[in-house]
């Protein structure tokens, strides 16, 4: 689960992680007020969307307007905010369609001496969180890793003990921080790692992390993603911005389905994540384009299959649907019952190709063939299924 920068910074502040002073603005007037409230000579107006690259991003409606701007007066804050709010910001990470900006964060300017990179992620090799820092603040860490890996430093974060002060100093010395900043790092880095651990984050990234001219570490940006598996033990629900999520994906999650919308025109309904992914691959291999990833899970019932079909068909791009089920513990005939009921309830308008294999497949095929629904196309194996569904688009 992703949250906005301003939410992450509010959580940071509460946890004792240093952030610049900032005010949330939902209207242009609020942005102007925010500038006055902060009281400085400069402020930064930042678009709040769940994607990076905002500074270099531009608005569809205002091609000269950047997603993050430095302003020197309340009027300037208001004028920029007018162009930004309600407009569509396109960055390297949003894709061409961009994202609508509904919220701005107006932040006090800082006297910056240095910009660093900081990220805490789960390292799959050491099975532990790891703190990654680099002297190249503001740069994409992947680029730095590729071009100048010697500028990246890592320290493991013990899940029980957190980050120790000596580890913070170790990193600070490697980064060449001066005495004052090393002292600041001794507090900042362990506090930030504790934030990661206490909130079950899967990513906490601060890019840039700045060192101010008086030697203090401050989080100038904040990107926080929580581990979806641990949401049950936190109260993060009010931080969720549903406008940032695909409506159908939210709906799918509520029905216990795992769904990801894609750009193609062949809808897929599959059991199991691996099989669902490879069904997409198979469609592509045979010249089609998958419209979605959809895993109905191991125990799909009539309601879930019905909802799955509705979600797939709600996508106007979908011109055919492929059902690929390998019945394990879930019996194929049970799936067919659900399928037939759902087929009737939903009212199909596009071709449906069904491939079944596994437990009770004979019974399932018989049920399908005697159902009177002759417009359902059956397939014998994976390749046959992919060819048939692609053929429905060209015939």
């Amino acid at each position, binding site marked *: 689960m992703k949250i906005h920068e301003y939410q992450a910074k509010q959580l940071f502040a509460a946890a004792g992680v240093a952030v610049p002073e900032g005010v949330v603005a939902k209207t242009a007037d609020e942005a102007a007020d925010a500038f006055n409230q902060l009281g400085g000579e400069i402020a930064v107006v930042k678009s709040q969307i769940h994607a990076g690259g905002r500074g270099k991003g531009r608005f569809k409606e205002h091609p000269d307007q950047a997603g993050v701007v430095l302003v020197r007066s309340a009027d300037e804050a208001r004028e920029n905010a007018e162009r930004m709010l309600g407009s569509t910001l396109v960055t390297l990470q949003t894709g061409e369609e961009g994202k609508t900006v509904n919220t701005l964060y107006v932040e006090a300017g800082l006297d910056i001496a240095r910009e660093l990179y900081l990220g805490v992620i789960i390292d799959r090799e050491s099975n532990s969180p790891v703190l990654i820092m680099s002297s190249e603040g503001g740069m994409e860490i992947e680029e730095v890793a590729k071009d100048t890996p010697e500028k990246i430093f890592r320290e493991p974060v013990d899940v029980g003990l957190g980050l120790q002060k000596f580890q913070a100093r170790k990193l600070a010395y490697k980064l060449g921080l001066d005495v004052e900043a090393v002292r600041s790092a001794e507090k900042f880095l362990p506090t930030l790692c504790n934030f990661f651990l206490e909130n079950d984050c899967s990513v906490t990234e601060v890019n840039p992390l700045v060192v101010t001219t008086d030697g203090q570490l401050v989080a100038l940006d904040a990107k926080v993603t929580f581990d979806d598996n*641990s949401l049950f033990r936190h109260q993060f629900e009010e931080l969720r911005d549903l406008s940032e999520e695909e409506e159908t994906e939210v709906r799918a999650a509520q029905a216990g389905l795992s769904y990801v919308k894609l750009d193609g025109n062949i809808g897929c309904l599959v059991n199991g994540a691996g099989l669902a992914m490879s069904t997409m691959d198979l469609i592509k291999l045979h010249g089609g384009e998958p419209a979605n990833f959809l895993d109905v899970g191991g125990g799909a019932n009539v309601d879930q299959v019905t909802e799955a079909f509705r979600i797939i068909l709600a996508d106007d791009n979908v011109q055919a649907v492929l059902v690929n089920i390998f019945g394990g513990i879930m019996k194929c005939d049970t799936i067919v019952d659900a399928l037939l009921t759902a087929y009737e309830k939903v009212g199909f308008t596009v071709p449906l190709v069904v491939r079944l294999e596994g437990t009770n497949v004979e019974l399932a095929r018989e049920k399908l063939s005697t159902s009177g629904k002759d417009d359902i196309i059956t397939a014998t194996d994976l390749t046959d299924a992919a060819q048939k569904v692609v053929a429905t688009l060209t015939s």
Partner: protein
Amino acid sequence: MSILVNEETRVITQGITGRAGLFHSQKCREYGTPLVGGVTPGKGGTKIDGFPVFDSVADAVEKTGANASMIFVPPPFCGDAIMEAADAGIKLIVAITEGIPVLDMAKVMPQLKEHDCRLIGPNCPGIITPGIAKIGIMPGYIHQEGNVGLISKSGTLTYEAAWQLGNIGLGQSTAIGIGGDPIIGSTFIDLLEMFENDPGTESILMIGEIGGNAEEQAADFIKANVTKPVAAFIAGVTAPPGRRMGHAGAIIARGAGTAAEKIAALQAAGVEVAESPADMGAAVQRAIANRS
């Protein structure tokens, strides 16, 4: 011969009084697995469908001689259940549970090491040595006895592969689902090593997917250490970056963990990579033919 599961295996189920726990315990027993009991704290001393229930894993081990555990405990309590099993001296733990917080797994891992305990999963279908025993939720009849070692991150894709192998007369020595989470107990490399050393295994099929770099590491390991023919399939060639594809670990995070990288690494290590999920069985045949 086989790996991990054999005639000596004695299994208990943690979470046996839950719906899934009981159902799959019954299925394992039907398959022939020596399932000697279960654990549900607070229900010790009772019986469920003939299975004795114990309050603790330690108690179950003492009374039944169990040496393996299959875990169905719900996600919030699963990390604790794994650590309890390790502490009680269980040497093989199979965690079926999906949805364990990743930091819980980070806490579990050092404990496993300390107790010299092997964990399969979490978020996996389990292990089967066809004809002998299964510890998991896979349908037994799909897996025929044979000499292909099967390792997979995905459940239904494993069934698909076992079915394809069966159709061309290739059974499995042992088939293992390692799970699709970011932190897992056993990796491709752990199991590749076991299969390489298992006289009952003559070839290996590994099924990976996008996310992380376990497949690339496996490729390096194969190149240096595996003499048996290896085939592979990688799911997610068409997966978009930055989106989690069902499994918690199946995500291309900012350019890393793509299927293309994994396929290239495996091919460079001499692995026969299936071009589609329909080609997994045939890829094993080609891998074997290439060696003879």
